[in-house]
């Protein structure tokens, strides 16, 4: 449920199967304010994935060290597009 300290997270493509419970817009809403992206993803279902991915916060690319703020939208895009 949406509330204080929460951020919205979405995994795409081959990572989408690992999404935890989703809201009606397809986001995983989780407590993330003050955490780095790395900390959040290391405690998420994709923590052990060997698939490479790119991270966007509010549609801008960010490093895993980026500290999340309340209401941020974290987008995780797999980098798997050969051929």
């Amino acid at each position: 449920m949406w509330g204080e300290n929460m951020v919205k997270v979405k995994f795409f493509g081959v990572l989408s199967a690992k999404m935890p419970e989703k809201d009606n817009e397809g986001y995983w809403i989780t407590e993330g304010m003050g955490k780095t992206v790395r900390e959040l993803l290391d405690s998420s279902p994709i923590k052990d994935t060997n698939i490479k991915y790119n991270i966007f916060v509010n549609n801008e690319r960010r490093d895993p060290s980026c500290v999340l703020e309340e209401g941020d939208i974290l987008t995780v895009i797999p980098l798997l597009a050969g051929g």
Partner: protein
Amino acid sequence: MYGYWKTILRINLTDHTYSTETLDEKYLKLLLGGAALGAKILLDEVKPKIDPLSPENKIIFSLGFMQSVNFPGNAKWTVVTKGPLTGSFLDSAGTGAWAPQLKKAGYDVLVVEGKSEYPVYIFINDDKVEFRDASSIWGKDTIETSKIIKEELGDKRINAINIGPAGENLNPIACISCDGHSFAGRGGAGAIMGSKNLKAIAVWGTKQVPVADLEGSQELAKELFIRLHETAKGGGGTPDVMVPLEELGDVPIKYWRGDVWHHGAKMIGTPRYTELLNVKPLPCQNCPVGCHRHINLKLKDGSILDGNGPEYETLGMLGASLLLDDLEAIAVANDRANRSGIDTVSLGSYIGFVVECYEAGFLSAEEIGMVPRWNDEETLLYLEDKISRLEGIGSLFRKGIRGAVEIIGQESAGIAVEVKNLDLPAHDPRAVYGLAVNYATSPRGACHERGNPQASALGLFYPDCDMDSPPERFDEDSAGYCAYVYQNTSMLFNNLTMCKFMVNNGGLTVTEIGKELKVSTGLDYTNRDLLKTSERGIALQRLINVRDGMSRKDDTLPPKMLQAAVIGGRAGKSPAAFDKMLDDYYKLRGWDENGIPTAKTLEDLGLEDYIPMLT
């Protein structure tokens, strides 16, 4: 405007002369380079409906600003010409250090015209151009040729793009090779070099093009290289996608008649590919990703195959499409194709076509010279040899697969899987409807590079380009949009002559490309400005197609693509509403219902100079 020399090197092979010209800065700003700039030059200089193999055709090599410093993925060049398969616009891109070297020699564009009386190769050495007799290397394969030229010029660092015997023999699926490392593979540009008696172009340059902020450019290039490498390291190259794409139903199986091939995909994809072929990454110059694979394999006959490994496309067309799960056989066929200089995508398509024509009774074993079979190494290697040489059954393909249909009979047309006479690559448009529209409208024929909606099915999209998510792959309503968006981004990479894997696998963003542009050229473009250059390039390429007589009637799908699978990742799906998807796409492009760019569209794009061409 920095980052460009604003210079064309023009070489005339008929009289062995050369000159330089100044590029129009207005169009450099509008197009940025590469495939878009090449299209403008082709449109301006080459008449409609000429024979692509005649001396009237020109072959244009075009760069962008990326080669101004060592930006990641800049070892890329684009060749633009009239192609022998479509008879109209062709662009193809290859990688290798040749591109940065051409820039260092002082040029943004190389135009080669006319025809030499005898085989030659060109050596561009900064300001000098030499025409060297190539009679002694005519007939040599691509790898031998590269080696001989390096020895003859006395410097292993000199790069030469070249053709193999297939290009000399005007095979319409002949490639241009760069140091045996990479290929401008699709559409037959190698045959155009062959038609001009041009065996190779070697280049060496020592100059630094002026850039807006040299120190800033070099710092940004270094910073991006480190980050992209950190992101991409440890990947398995393009074979990584074989298994996931097969699960989605995106892989061609049994020449587009099969539904699933789970076991086979695992046999030829990673991780088995990496283990069996003793793989090492084989990066191009300035590449932090390293998608190419070097393989070292002891073959059944005891010899060693030490060279380039097959890419995903080759695995798809020589493996899955032929139901062949023997990696060694695919690797051998790939090596032979590389040496001869032919496109493994069309090669696999032609072989599948022959096998299916045999099963349908349209070709006999006597005509083929053997009984062709699926999952058969002998069939693959025998037919590869014939097609590569255009001998025996292979001579059917002298004018591509449509030429073969004309000879065999129209009843075989339903078997052939092509658009505009270019064979479909190893992605199935029934698995991603946007890909169906993309194949139908791609100016060089069915192409997964001039638009890559297939990547959307794996989750790739561009949040910094007004996208919140990738389009749903079976959504008829967004298929036209899907093709439009992914063509625009792909076209941008082709305009900049930058390897798409920097984005797809390294995680480079369009916003960061804008930063590279600014520090190199001084141009401050938004992401929308960047994508506008793509729209212009696509419009110019379309004008070439239109002037050659193409329109909506040519934006079609092969009949097999309307047959749905029974099982697997695309079961029950086919792009049946294709006409509506095409209408949607035309509207987004600003083309009329017949697929012709309107005067208003050209005006909005700043291409007013080309409005008279519409009348």
